[in-house]
């Protein structure tokens, strides 16, 4: 077991900077997710941790030990690859036993460990098969078996369940989390799927274009995004953004838009005034679809909008709305009666909305 620390790590491929000045720590036994869209440098980070990629600048520590110059085999890590990377000419048993055999472990002990790992992953009946005879989910279990059998000090998972079908993926999220908690091994898990990151991790590191955007618990990432990009990336369906002016009106701060005026709470106004005492501000309001309440009739109070289209999802209903020139997406119950072209009225959840500086994209709250 070990903690992991990345200190001012850079990765350059020629002129391209894949990872820029990354600082991360992962405590012993923790589940850390590195989350970001493709090309954000998350895989490069993982490969540097594995020793498969040279670290262009900065240092990586496992515990107190600097591992920059250690080859993969001496780092005591186990990695699960995106497309499993099973050895096609070996059986499932041999695939799992490979790392133990390479360490010249006693045969009886290998057998015992492989059987134990297989039992844990429920792949005992498959041990004599070759990878070509396995389904996607079985391949993935074998790949995980290969990683856990060695009891390494660190697991590195590179989008291990990205290629499974949606139902199996949802199932595996729970299983992986249980497995990690049972084993207690430090885990660094790379994914582009926010659902995986939010549901499994102790801490999430959100990356974009090689730069760490935010590091925090899943709850922090979701409810207190530090900037507009993180706010827009996390959450499904994504957050709505509306450009507003922020003005002082009768002792309170208001957001004004051609179609509405909304008053900030006292606490929010205090935060804004403390951060930025200047008078008039160009801001952007961020509201998640499920923080907008929609009523099918046009009331006098409330914000008036027009229904563009409704998208029933079974248990929920998404409503595409037009608010002047801007479009909003709201999540409501399937009994919503509005039709295309109808007027309706909205209320924003004042306690859960976010306001960003329009120029810098930084969040006020």
């Amino acid at each position, binding site marked *: 077991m070990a903690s992991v620390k990345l200190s001012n790590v850079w990765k350059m491929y020629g002129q391209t900077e894949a990872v820029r000045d990354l600082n991360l720590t992962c405590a012993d036994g923790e589940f850390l997710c590195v989350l970001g869209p493709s090309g954000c440098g998350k895989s490069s980070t993982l490969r540097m941790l*594995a*020793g*498969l990629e040279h670290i262009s600048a900065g240092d990586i520590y496992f515990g107190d030990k600097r591992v920059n110059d250690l080859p993969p085999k001496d780092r005591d*890590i186990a*990695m699960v690859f995106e497309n499993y*990377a099973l050895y096609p000419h070996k059986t499932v048993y041999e695939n799992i036993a*490979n790392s133990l055999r*390479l360490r010249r472990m006693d045969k009886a002990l290998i057998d015992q460990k492989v059987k134990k790992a297989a039992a844990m992953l429920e792949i005992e009946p498959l041990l004599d098969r070759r990878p070509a005879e396995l389904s996607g989910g079985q391949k993935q279990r074998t790949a995980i078996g290969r990683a856990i059998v060695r009891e390494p000090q660190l697991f590195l998972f590179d989008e291990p369940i990205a290629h499974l079908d949606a139902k199996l993926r949802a199932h595996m999220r729970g299983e992986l989390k249980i497995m990690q908690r049972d084993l207690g091994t430090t885990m660094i898990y790379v994914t582009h799927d926010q659902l995986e990151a939010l549901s499994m991790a102790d801490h999430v590191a959100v990356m974009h274009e090689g730069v760490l955007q935010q590091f925090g618990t899943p709850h922090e990432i979701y409810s207190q995004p530090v900037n507009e990009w993180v706010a827009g990336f996390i959450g499904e369906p994504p957050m709505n953004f509306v450009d507003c002016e922020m003005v002082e009106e009768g002792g309170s701060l208001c957001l004004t838009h051609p179609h509405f005026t909304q008053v900030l709470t006292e606490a929010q106004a205090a935060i804004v005034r403390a951060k930025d005492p200047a008078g008039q501000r160009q801001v952007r309001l961020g509201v998640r679809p499920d923080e907008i309440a929609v009523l099918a009739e046009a009331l006098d109070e409330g914000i008036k909008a027009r229904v563009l289209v409704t998208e029933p999802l079974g248990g929920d209903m998404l409503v595409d709305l037009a608010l002047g020139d801007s479009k909003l997406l709201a999540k409501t119950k399937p009994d919503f009666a509005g039709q295309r072209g109808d007027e309706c009225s909205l209320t924003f959840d004042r306690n859960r909305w976010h306001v960003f500086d329009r120029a810098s994209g930084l969040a006020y709250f």
Partner: protein
Amino acid sequence: MADTSSSTVELDGTADLASVMRDGRRTINYDPPHLNPVPSRQYYFYLMLPAIIILACITIYPFFWLIYMSLHKVDIGGAGDVWNDFKNWTRLTRDSKFQDGWWLLLKYSAMCMFMEVGLGVLLAVILNNSRAEKILVTIFLMPMMMAPVIAGLVWYYLYNGTFGWYHWLLESAGILGETSILGGTSTAMIGIVIVDVWQWTPLITLITLAGLKRVPRDQLEANMVDGAGPVRNFFQISLPNLYPFLLIAILLRFMDNFRFIDAILVLTGGGPANSTKILPTYLFDVSFQFFKLGRGAAIALTLLVVTIILGLILVRVFDSPASKTGQTQAGN
């Protein structure tokens, strides 16, 4: 039960056929009323016909003609072919040159194969990790571009007892005595093997190099994380993935060794004292020096049959389940 099945029958509009509920799902246990016709494939046959006819003329006809010749005393003067009661075949059992020819051929191709595959794979691995890969490949390919006769002549001069550079080098080093490399019965075979290795190792290198490019990188990396060093990584991951490529390379070289005798004819002509008279050279002598076309045909047929059998064995060996799954995996 009766209730649910009646509701699904309505769904189909086929009132007389039953669909059955099982494990909470609707299942169908009848066949479709009629099948749509499968498009005819005859069209493809007509497309292939010209090729088939040409192929028949240039390969199948000579093949049967070869069998015919092997059963007759063939007269090239035009006196007509005479049936000779399998004499062409029975004489082979008493022909010591024929048997020696086989032995020498097997020795020759085994030596060539081991050296070419070993060297070829080694070179490919080195080239694959080299920055100057492209220019080096171009240089290594040069021997292969040369006509075998020319290669033979080049080496003939290099080996020459009076002015050959290699001869001089080996003699100066005290390895070689008075006789030239091609002049000694023990060294001549090695001499012709070296020429073949020099000319054809690049082919193995080229094919292996193509194979190395297709070895899945994540498998190599997974094995590294599992704890393998570069050498183990090569034998555990690269080599099994190379089997299909090596099969093609070995098959090609092995068939070539059974037919290419240009260089040998130029270098030794089968001598000294028949020490390099491998079967194809003997066949050449019988058919085109002594014009015993019937006997030559019999020898050629044995060569053909053995080539086919060895080829099948090779395919069987390399087509083991391991290398087979390796291929399908690579295709994913």
